[in-house]
């Protein structure tokens, strides 16, 4: 039995390597200074999808990403690693979305993508860090969800068996398909890019990317190889209600943002000689910090 699998992937600034220039003087994030990457746990999600495809020959893995035009990179990266295609959901109207407006837009796009057996996303994106989008997409589509998944063990007879990794243990659940699964970073790492696929898809482009190219050669390649055309959808393409997307569809409002600065203390400096450590310990005992 072949499966139709959708993977949710977000392009995120690499918040794990935040340098000095990452914050602007006004305390906002200078996204331009941070490299844009495939959200780490979405790579774990993609790997689970590819493993299902290995187990069920004939299955298809489609990526869905919402973001600015440059998020087309996410689709190419997915194709290089073994996905079959994807959709970039991009429109100015989506900007400023909170998790509810994001999941509404994603759910509209998923309905347009047609039938599916399973939707797999990362547990959490490293910029917003909320872990809310997966469950909200599930609710919008009125299907079950299994979060904190570490392994999708099997899908058989309309049921998925999934191992979850929780704070203090594990749980194995059986859930009806179709469903949404969100995957933890503790799951299998994503397979690397495949050289043949990189060769095959390196010129894959969205319509707006190819319009920006006035290279005749590229133009003719794109025309003769339809698999190089990446889908790019707008609010209108997915029949989304303008009132429910972007800033206007977001119940949460950011009131203020502050840069985090820690109050430096006046510290006593010790080099760690025997005498110094003895004196320190003596003081800590004397003032009842220890003992």
């Amino acid at each position, binding site marked *: 039995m072949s499966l139709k699998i959708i993977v949710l992937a977000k392009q995120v*600034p690499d*918040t*794990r390597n*935040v340098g000095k220039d990452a*914050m602007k003087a006004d305390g*906002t*994030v200078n996204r331009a200074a941070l490299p844009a990457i495939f959200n780490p746990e979405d790579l774990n999600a993609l790997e689970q999808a590819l493993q299902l495809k290995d187990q069920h020959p004939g299955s298809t893995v489609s990526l869905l990403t919402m973001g600015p035009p440059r998020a087309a990179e996410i689709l190419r990266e997915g194709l290089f690693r073994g996905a079959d295609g994807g959709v970039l959901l991009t429109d100015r109207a989506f900007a400023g979305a909170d*998790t*509810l407006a994001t999941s509404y837009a994603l759910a509209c796009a998923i309905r347009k993508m047609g039938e599916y057996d399973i939707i797999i996303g990362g547990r959490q994106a490293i*910029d*917003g*860090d*909320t*872990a*809310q989008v*997966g*469950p*909200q997409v599930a*609710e*919008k589509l009125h299907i*079950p969800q*299994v*979060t*904190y998944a570490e392994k999708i063990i099997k899908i058989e007879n309309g049921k998925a*068996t999934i191992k979850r990794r929780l704070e*203090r*243990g*594990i*749980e*194995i659940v*059986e859930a*009806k398909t179709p469903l949404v699964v969100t995957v933890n970073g503790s799951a299998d790492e994503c397979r690397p890019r495949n050289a043949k696929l990189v060769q095959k898809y390196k010129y894959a482009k969205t319509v707006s990317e190819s319009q920006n190219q006035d290279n005749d050669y590229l133009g003719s390649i794109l025309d003769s190889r339809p698999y190089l055309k990446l889908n790019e959808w707008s609010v209108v393409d997915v029949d989304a209600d303008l009132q429910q997307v972007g800033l206007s569809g*977001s*119940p*949460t*409002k*950011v*009131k*203020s*943002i*502050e840069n*985090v600065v*820690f109050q*430096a*203390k006046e*510290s*006593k*400096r*010790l*080099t*760690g000689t025997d005498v*110094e*450590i*003895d004196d*320190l*310990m003596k003081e800590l*005992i004397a003032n009842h*910090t*220890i*003992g």
Partner: protein
Amino acid sequence: MNNLIVYCEIEDGIIADVSLELLTKGRTLANKLNCKLEALVIGHKLDDIEKQIFPYGADTIYLADDKRLYPYTSMPHTSVLVNLFKEIKPQICLMGATSIGRDLGPRVSSSLHSGLTADCTSLEIGSHEDKKERKNYENLLYQIRPAFGGNIVATIVNPECRPQMATVREGVMKKEIVSPSYKGEIIKLDISKYISDTDFVVEVIERQIEKSKVNIKGAPIIVAGGYGVGSKENFKLLYDLAATIGGEVGASRAAVDAGFAEHERQIGQTGVTVRPKLYIACGISGQIQHIAGMQDSSMIIAINNDPNAPINTIADYVITGTVEDILPKMIKYYKKNSK
């Protein structure tokens, strides 16, 4: 009507610490808002569960008791919350940022179309002016949370939609009994009105949950190790010092990722928040996400071979040296000089 409600998590008949912490915070907020503090418990065999909750100042406890409601699964619990909230219209709903709260909260918020703020580190009541719409709001919940990997702190409000929903991690708020004899009202929900058979589409077929063995949250002294400790072997020095001076061992995420310490010991933005009397940071560089979980310690000692490690800026004592050299000296002195 329009009260503040806390979703209380249970495991083996015990209310989770994070829920008690939220009741404590909820009590303070409810006093400011002049509304009631309510609690909702969903599970099975809930007799006497109220004894664990009333002392924290709950005025009402809603109980949803049914064999099928324990262990937790997403959809039945969602249905209870959604249908109950449509009835009682709370203004605020708080839950733990646990694997349950982060599964349940977003599903409920999507169904009710009410905003949800994740992993708040502080909750306050305040006013808000929407300049564009020229509207003023009083008594909103300020939901304060770190984002962008802890590099910024955002204050988020939900002006229009109710309830205003927020999750908070364990250990971030303090837990405090209001009065051992505090009493409120118990309301048992008629389950058939809240859930339907179609909610039961996920079945838990195996479950291995361990009780928490370590209690770093409550420890007065924490000896925490980072990647600079070097190995699981070397971590023994930290256990030694902790046992000697009566503390617990904590760890940075890098140390946990490297397998030097268990995940339960992780301190920081994605671990627990601690505020002990004494925090000894051994071989920890002091990245923002770590500091977020320990900056309120009364006294901080940093042991690091790098004189410019960022942790030094917030330390009361900076010892420039290696963990291997300094810790044995501390242990030796204490063993010799305490009775």
